[in-house]
């Protein structure tokens, strides 16, 4: 049988010597006159007042002048009996338990299960063991630390995201403000505003995804479109000879953005005098038709930045390129002449990366006046762009571009974090 209660030291005392009220009525009962003066009664037992209180309450005794007189000697004292039962672990009426608990003669045993464990070996440290202090008296089983355990997977950022975040951190540190733009673009922003001629080969169906349905982009700023159109046709006021023609209807055609430089153009046109100097970056998606295999995908991210400010020059452009290459752990950086329709001079950065050799990491240039002037900017604008997907592949040590959009949960769960 499980013992639920045990005696307190006071309860144990009363079990041995009797409850104070029992002691009191016993003494009174032994007197010839069945009475005693208070002073004497008080000396005869300890806990006199407790005994007196209960004896009076139960109407076993009453006071008569200076004397205490036995009124009725109790046949049974249930509390006394209950104390014995509790000590033996017997059944006791709840009412009596409550009384004994109230008189703090018994207390509940809280460590009943744990008691059994004393001196034994346990596997688990339970809250009971801890609370009762019994943990001091048990032995903990020793574990084999080499036993295999089940795998745990944390919630994690996608490995590619981790690279992107790292690049963003770097750019924000360099003072660049992040920009965004629509994924569905007009040719105007995707190409015309960047001085790419209407018949440029990269504007064909093999290089750009067209939006189905034949809807056209809105012309929100007619003057801007006019300036851009004239720049194409005859150079407008840019000092250029222009391309000799411009196709307005083509400019209104909707395409899936094929270069984030569209966002740079949209940013430039919004710049006010007081916004300059300004540094902007964008890391976002572009779309271009291509074969879909381990090396190519039709959706890709570009990381692009511009710096607009008085007195900026080609050396500064190279400075930014070098700084960005360092993000990817470049050991050395070299520069090659290159060509982009919207920048002049144009340069390609090549970085020496450990275990990879020389890798082309990004293109850059100073925006042509044919780009900046129609957009209302008359300071030099440095521009650079990186194929961040390819750089992420280097950083992540993967050779298949499809891992950037991995549908392999195992790989995502097990891939180490980017450090």
């Amino acid at each position: 049988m499980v013992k639920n209660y045990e005696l307190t030291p006071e309860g144990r005392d009363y079990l041995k010597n009797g409850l104070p009220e029992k002691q009191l009525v016993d003494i009174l009962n032994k007197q010839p006159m069945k009475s005693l003066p208070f002073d004497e009664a008080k000396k005869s037992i300890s806990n006199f007042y407790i005994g007196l209180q209960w004896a009076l309450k139960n109407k076993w005794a009453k006071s008569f002048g200076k004397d205490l007189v036995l009124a009725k000697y109790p046949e049974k004292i249930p509390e006394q009996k209950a104390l014995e039962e509790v000590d033996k672990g017997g059944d006791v009426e709840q009412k009596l338990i409550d009384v004994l608990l109230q008189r703090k003669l018994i207390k509940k045993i809280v460590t009943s299960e744990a008691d059994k464990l004393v001196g034994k070996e346990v596997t688990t440290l339970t809250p009971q063991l801890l609370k009762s202090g019994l943990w001091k008296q048990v032995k903990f089983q020793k574990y084999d630390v080499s036993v295999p355990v089940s795998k745990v997977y944390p919630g994690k950022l996608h490995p590619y995201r981790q690279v992107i975040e790292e690049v963003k951190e770097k750019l924000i540190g360099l003072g660049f403000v992040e920009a965004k733009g629509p994924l569905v673009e007009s040719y105007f922003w995707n190409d015309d505003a960047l001085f790419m001629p209407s018949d440029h080969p990269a504007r064909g169906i093999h290089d750009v995804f067209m939006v189905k349905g034949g809807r056209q982009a809105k012309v929100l700023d007619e003057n801007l479109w006019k300036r851009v159109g004239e720049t194409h046709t005859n150079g407008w006021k840019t000092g250029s000879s222009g391309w000799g023609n411009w196709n307005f209807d083509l400019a209104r055609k909707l395409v899936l953005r094929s270069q984030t430089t569209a966002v740079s153009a949209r940013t430039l046109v919004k710049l006010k005098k007081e916004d300059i100097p300004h540094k902007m970056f964008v890391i976002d998606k572009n779309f271009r038709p291509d074969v879909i295999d381990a090396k190519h995908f039709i959706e890709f991210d570009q990381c692009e930045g511009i710096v607009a400010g008085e007195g900026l020059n080609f050396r500064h452009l190279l400075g930014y390129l070098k700084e960005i290459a360092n993000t990817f752990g470049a050991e050395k950086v070299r520069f090659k002449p290159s060509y982009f329709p919207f920048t002049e001079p144009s340069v390609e950065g090549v970085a020496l990366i450990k275990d990879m050799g020389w890798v082309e990491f990004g293109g850059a240039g100073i925006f042509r006046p044919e780009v900046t002037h129609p957009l209302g900017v008359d300071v030099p604008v440095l521009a650079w762009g990186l194929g961040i997907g390819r750089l992420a592949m280097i950083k992540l040590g993967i050779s298949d571009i499809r891992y950037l959009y991995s549908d392999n949960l195992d790989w995502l769960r097990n891939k180490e974090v980017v450090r």
Partner: protein
Amino acid sequence: MPTITYGKKDLLNLIGKKLSDEQLEEVIHSMKTNVEEENENEITIELTPDRPDLFGIEGLARAIKQYLGLQTGLKKFAVNSPKLHVKASYLPYRPHLAAAVVRNVSVTDAFIKSLMNIQDILTDTVGRKRKKVAIGIHDFDKIIPNINYIEVDPTEKIVPLDTNEEMTLAEILDKIPKGKDYGHILAGLKKFPVWTDAKGIFSFPPIINSDRTRVTEKTKNLLVELTGIDKETVLQTLNIIVTNFAERGCSIEAVKIFHGDKSEVTPNLNPTFMDVGTDEINKLIGLDLKKSDIIDSLNRMGYDVTENKGLLRVFIPAYRTDILHGVDVIEDVAIGYGFNNFVPQLPHIATVGKLHPAEKLSAKVRQLLIGYGFQEIINPVLSNSTDQFEKMNWKKENVIEIENPVSQEYTCLRICLKPGLLKILGKNTHVSYPQNIFEVGDVVWPDENEETMSKSIRSIAGLMCHSKTSFTDVKSLVDSLLKNLNIGYKLESHDLEEMISGRSAKILANGKYIGNFGEINPTVLNNWGIEIPCSAFEIDLEVL
């Protein structure tokens, strides 16, 4: 970008100096070109489209010679006065033409290879696949004046190049590969443009030449004829071709073309000029070059320079078609100086960097979802209507569709993130559960009010896939997520097609529908091949 293979031996002969492979590669990389492949005999180079004068091996060799300082400054070309006259009709669909006679050619294998190369690559790139410019090169001695550029009926006949069968022009478009490839340029025309001599048609631009005037190893003199729709491009392309031949020691003779009673002489190889200031140059490239250094640089890039009223007058060779603005000359100063001689320098410009608000919020949301133990997924924005609608039990809605898709898998832009996530679960049924995944990314909806008729919207979606997942599960998560984002919301019971009826809800914030959640319908789970219950939520971040 065009990629061209050159014979190494021919290239070095034209340069006139022995160069090691390393030296050759080094100099090629200094000229906007990239070595793609190299073996003992050949070198394959990727070129940029702005320098068609380098597409031919002779032009490339010339630029290398100048860059190495073997022959600097403006290359002058003599043009002999015209003996040949051409009478041109005005053909509105292909109005511009130019021609030249090239004398004293010595037809070697290298020459033939170069001739075919330059013709193909120029018509493909500058000529926009023959639409803008088409080129014909003939054995001049087989042509018997008088020469005309006229239009004729499609029933007229010639023997096309490399055949021995006479056929009509209409048949050429039908039967011969070149006719099939380029016939669309002549679509809708009742008459076709041709060059004729005393014996009849010898060229059918932009399709094919006659076999009669083909260039053989015995050819001594050439006729180069070009037609096209852009005058400037036609003239420039002729300049590139004839200056290439001149590099092989041939002499150039002009041709006089009569347009009615007006006439013009082609080619014109006189240089043009542009005035650029030393200050302007130094300001843009960030150096403090002396005038003499600049002139030296430009000489090595093939320009002559004189002075004019304090400015540099830069003479531009006739084969350079890429000089539109002073900045184009300035770039050549920098290339001549050598990009790797510049010391990179970050400017001292203090600006305050910051994230775009939508990206900042996205990062917070990702952080929370990772805290709930979810794995991030990045899916393409490109999708298809089977995934977006059919498999989700949805009726097809308006989406941004692609006119020229390259794969059935990617034909439109996604309007919802859930399908992409379900697809991932369907592909990972062998991987241990629970599988809790999320994506924060863009979806694109058609929107007539927007400038580009569409709106990119930042969205978040999550899936919980395990045997005990339920409505309660996802509701707790959504509640926690929105509370952490400090977004007050209300829920409305709302049956969604992809959810179990009675077990999905709409999320409203300030009365606006911002998202939904619920238990995925078994039909939809079946569609994706998922055999474990799944609950899901998707919330539009843009409106938060």
